C-alpha cells in the first residue's frame, strides 16, 4: 500500500511538472498573440492527463506516442508544405498583412527644420513624474508621464539660486543614471504635438516626428503623409498609381497560381520534364546495378567453398558503413577532380588521357551513378544475404536430384523466393534514390550547367531542381513555387510506390504457388 501511494505521488508530480511547463508556454504564446498554438497545446495536455489517469484510455497509452510522432513528423510537414504551395510565400512576402501594416505604422519621419528638445526629468529614483522640455526658440513645456501638457504655473514649483526650477511638486531633478534606470517609461512616452508627436530621439533629446503613413482600413489604402500619395493593395503589396511598390508585402493564399506558373512558364516546364526523365533513369540504373552487384556478391559470399568470407563481407560493407557525407566529398575532390583527382592522375600517367568526370554532361551522369552504385551495393548485398538464408535447402536439393543445373536452380527457385522479401526493399530503395538530394548536391550540385540561365543542370534530379527553384526568384526566395514542385514530386512518388507494391503482390502469389 505504502509503495503504491509513493508511486502515485511520483506520477502526480511528474504530471504536475509537465502541466506547469505547458501552462507557462500557453501563457507565453497568449502574450505573443499565438492563441491557436496555445489552445492546441492546452487541448493536447488535457488529453495527456486524461490518458494518464483514466482507466478507459489504457490501450491508447501505447498507441498514442506513435500516432503523435507520425502526425508531428509526417502529416504536419506535408500539410504545411501543401499549404505553402498555395501561397505567394517568397522574399518580400513573408510577414502577415497585419504585421506589414504595423511596420508601416511604425515608420515616422523627422520633418525638415524639425524640432529637438532637451529635457529635465523630475521624480524619484524609482519613477519619473514630470518632464520639462526645452528648445531654443520655444517656451519651456511641462508634461507628465501620460503625455499631457501641463500649465507650469498651476503646479507648485520653486527656483534655486541660479533661477533654475530645481523642484516641481516636491519632486527633484534626476541625474542621468536615475533617468536611464527608467528608460523604458521614457521611451514609451509620446507627446501629441501638431501632426505627430514628440518622443525620445536619443537618450538626451526629444524629437518631433510625424508618422509617415496613415492606413484607411475601410478602403484598405495607405496614404503617405509627406507626399499625399495613395497606395492601393495589388498582389499582396501596397502599390501607388504610378507603380511604386512599398516593401514589405505580405503572404496570402493565391490558389493554384504556383502550379499554373509551373505548367505554363516555358523556363520551368521544359526542364521539369527532362529532369523528370533523368531522375527516373538515375533511380532505375542505380537500383538495378547496385542490386545486380549486391546479389552477385551475396551469392558468392553465401557459397561455403569460399574461404575468409567474413573478412570479405566486412570489407564490402565499408562503403555503406562510412558516412556518405565524407566519402562523397572524397569522390568529388579526391577522385573526380579533372586536374588533381586520382582517376585522372592515373589515366594521365598511364594512357595520357583526361576525362572530364564531372564537367561534361554525359560523364557527370555516369559519375554520379557510379558513385551512388558504390554507395548502395553493400545494402543490396546485406539484404540479399539475409534473404538467401531463408531459401530452404531441401528445395534446392530436390531440384538438383531432378537434374536442374546451377543457373536453372537460381532462376527457378532461389531468385523468385528471395524476390518476395527483397522486392519491397527495392521499391523503397527506388523511392530513396529518387529523392537522394545529398548524393547529387555533394557531388555536383546538379552541375554541369546546360546553358546560361537554365535553372537545371545536367545531373539535377527533381528534388535538387525544386531546391534550386526556391532560390532563383528575381529577388530572392520563391518558396511557394518550390513547394508546388515538392508536392508534385510527392504525388509522383506515391503513384510509383502504389503501382509497384501492387506488382509485388503478384510476386507473392507466385511464391504461394511454389
Amino acid at each position, binding site marked *: 500500500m505504502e509503495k503504491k501511494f509513493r508511486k502515485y505521488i511520483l506520477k502526480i508530480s511528474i504530471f504536475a511538472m509537465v502541466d506547469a511547463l505547458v501552462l507557462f508556454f500557453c501563457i507565453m504564446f497568449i502574450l505573443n498573440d499565438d492563441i491557436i498554438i496555445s489552445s492546441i497545446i492546452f487541448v493536447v495536455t488535457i488529453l495527456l492527463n486524461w490518458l494518464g489517469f483514466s482507466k478507459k484510455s489504457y490501450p491508447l497509452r501505447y498507441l498514442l506516442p506513435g500516432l503523435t510522432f507520425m502526425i508531428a513528423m509526417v502529416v504536419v510537414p506535408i500539410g504545411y508544405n501543401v499549404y505553402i504551395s498555395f501561397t505567394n510565400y517568397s522574399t518580400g512576402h513573408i510577414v502577415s498583412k497585419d504585421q506589414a501594416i504595423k511596420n508601416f505604422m511604425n515608420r515616422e519621419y523627422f520633418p525638415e527644420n524639425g524640432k529637438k528638445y532637451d529635457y529635465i526629468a523630475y521624480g524619484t529614483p524609482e519613477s519619473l513624474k514630470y518632464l520639462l522640455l526645452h528648445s531654443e526658440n520655444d517656451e519651456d513645456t511641462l508634461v507628465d508621464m501620460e503625455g499631457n501638457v501641463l500649465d507650469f504655473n498651476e503646479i507648485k514649483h520653486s527656483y534655486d539660486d541660479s533661477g533654475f526650477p530645481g523642484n516641481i511638486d516636491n519632486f527633484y531633478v534626476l541625474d542621468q543614471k536615475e533617468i536611464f534606470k527608467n528608460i523604458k517609461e521614457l521611451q514609451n512616452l509620446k507627446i501629441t504635438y501638431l501632426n505627430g508627436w514628440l518622443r525620445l530621439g536619443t537618450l538626451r533629446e526629444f524629437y518631433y516626428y510625424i508618422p509617415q503613413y496613415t492606413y484607411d482600413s475601410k478602403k484598405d489604402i495607405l496614404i503617405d503623409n509627406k507626399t499625399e500619395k495613395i497606395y492601393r493593395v495589388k498582389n499582396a503589396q501596397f502599390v501607388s498609381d504610378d507603380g511604386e511598390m512599398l516593401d514589405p508585402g505580405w503572404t496570402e493564399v493565391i490558389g493554384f497560381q504556383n502550379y499554373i506558373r509551373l505548367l505554363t512558364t516555358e523556363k520551368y516546364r521544359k526542364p521539369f520534364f527532362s529532369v523528370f526523365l533523368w531522375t527516373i533513369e538515375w533511380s532505375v540504373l542505380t537500383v538495378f546495378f547496385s542490386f545486380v552487384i549486391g546479389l552477385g556478391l551475396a551469392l558468392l559470399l553465401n557459397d561455403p567453398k569460399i574461404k575468409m568470407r567474413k573478412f570479405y563481407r566486412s570489407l564490402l560493407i565499408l562503403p555503406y558503413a562510412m558516412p556518405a557525407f565524407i566519402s562523397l566529398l572524397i569522390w568529388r575532390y579526391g577522385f573526380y577532380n*579533372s586536374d588533381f583527382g586520382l582517376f585522372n592522375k592515373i589515366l594521365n600517367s598511364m594512357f595520357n588521357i583526361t576525362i572530364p568526370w564531372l564537367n561534361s554532361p554525359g560523364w557527370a551522369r555516369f559519375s554520379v551513378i557510379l558513385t551512388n552504385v558504390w554507395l548502395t551495393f553493400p545494402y543490396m548485398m546485406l539484404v540479399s544475404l539475409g534473404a538467401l538464408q531463408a531459401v530452404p535447402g531441401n528445395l534446392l536439393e530436390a531440384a538438383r536430384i531432378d537434374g536442374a543445373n546451377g543457373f536453372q536452380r537460381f532462376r527457378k527457385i532461389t531468385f523468385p523466393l528471395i524476390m518476395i522479401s527483397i522486392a519491397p526493399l527495392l521499391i523503397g530503395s527506388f523511392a530513396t534514390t529518387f529523392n537522394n538530394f545529398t548524393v547529387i548536391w555533394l557531388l555536383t550540385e546538379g552541375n554541369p550547367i546546360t546553358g546560361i540561365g537554365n535553372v537545371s543542370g545536367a545531373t539535377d534530379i527533381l528534388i535538387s531542381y525544386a531546391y534550386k527553384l526556391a532560390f532563383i526568384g*528575381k529577388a530572392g526566395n520563391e518558396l511557394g513555387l518550390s513547394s508546388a514542385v515538392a508536392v508534385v514530386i510527392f504525388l509522383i512518388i506515391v503513384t510509383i510506390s502504389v503501382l509497384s507494391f501492387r506488382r509485388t503482390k503478384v510476386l507473392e502469389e507466385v511464391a504461394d504457388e511454389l
Partner: protein
Amino acid sequence: MKRIILLVTLILFLVPAILLATEEGKLIIWADDTRAPIFKEIASSYTEETGIEVDVFEMTMDDITEQIVTASPAGEGPDFVVGAHDWVGRLVLNGSIAPIDLPEDIIEQFDPVTIDAMSYGGKLYGVPYSREGVALLYNKDLVPEPPQTWRELVNIAKELTDTSIPQYGFLVEYPYPYNCFPILSALGGYVFGKNPDGSFNLNDIGLDSVGMILGAELIDWLIEDGLMPEEVPWETMTGLLSEGHLGMVITGPWSVPIAEKGGVNVGVAPIPDICGQKPKPFVGVSGLMVNAYSPNKAIIQDFLLNHYITNEVMMKIFEMDPRPPAYLPTFELVKDDPVMNAFAESISNGISQPNVPEMSLVWNIWAEAMTMIGNQTMEPYEALEEADMKLEEIMKGNE
C-alpha cells in the same frame, strides 16, 4: 491530500516561469560566432557607462537572416543584427530593418564606399565597422617582387607554371565572378548602372559591357595557354597555395592564415594595372543593422552615436577582428600593419558589391557564363551577351 500536492507543485513551477517574461528597455544584439565575442565586449562597456543592459546572442549567419524576418514582427527579434552589407536588400524587402538617421558630419567620417554599400534606395540601413576585399597575394619565395603590370604578371605566370608538378604562377578562383571581378572591372566592366540618386538601375546590366568582355578575354587567354585550369575551386587554390606551388593569387585576407599555416612567406600587393587602368575589386562591408520593429529606438540611436561610432570602440573591434576599419579616424591610427594596409590599398580603388536582392540571381547566371568561357564552349562575348540578355528578360518580369 493528493490535490494539495498537485497544487503545490503546480505553483512551485509557475512562479519562476512568470518571472522569465521578456522585458523592454534593454538592447539585444544577434551576431555570428566570430563577431559575438567582439560585441559582448562592446556591450559590457556600454552597460558600464549607462546602466542599460545589452544582451548578445550568438547565432549562425543563416539563422540570423532567416529568423529576423519572422521574429521581429512578432516582437521577439533583436534590436541590432551584426551582418554583411549584402543582406541589406533582402532584409529591406522583407521589412526587417529600418533606415538609420545619422548626422551628415558623422557619415563623412566613414569610407564612402562602405556607406554606399550599406545604403538601399537612397537610405542608410547599416553602420559599417570594417571593409574587406581581394588583393594580389603572392609567395615571396617564388615571386620576389610583385608585378606592376598585367604583362609582368603573365610573364611570371609563364615562368612558374608547370602542370606536371602541378605548380601555377597565377590563379584566380574560377569561375567565381567575385574573385574575377578586379580583372573584369579594370577596363570598365560593371554589374548595374546607377540612377542619378545613387541607387542601382536594374535595367542597365553591364555584363556585356566592353570592359567586362575584354577582362574575361584576359582570363580566357590564361586558360587557353594552359596557365590556369578551366576550373579553380577553393580547395584547389588553397591546396596549391599552402603547399607552396602557387606564385600569385587574387584572394582576400581570409587566405592569409591558410598560406601561413603551410609555411609560405606571404606578401600582399595591389592587383597590377591592366593597360594602365586600376582593377576595382568588390568591397564587402560588415556593420550593425537595426530591427524595424524595435521598441528601443532612442537607446539604439544613443548606442550608435555615443558609443559605437567612437574611436575607442572601433579600435576595440579592430583589435579583435583585424580588418581595415570603415571608420576613417580609426583607420588612420592602425595604418602601419603591412598586410592589412596592402588590402586596404587594393580596396581603396574598389566599388561596393551591389546589395540588391536581385544580386543572388546575377551571381548564378554570371558564374554560368564564366563556366562556359572557361570550358571553351563559348567565346567571352557570346557567353556574357547571352547572360546579359537572360538577366534583362528576368528583370523586365518576363519569365
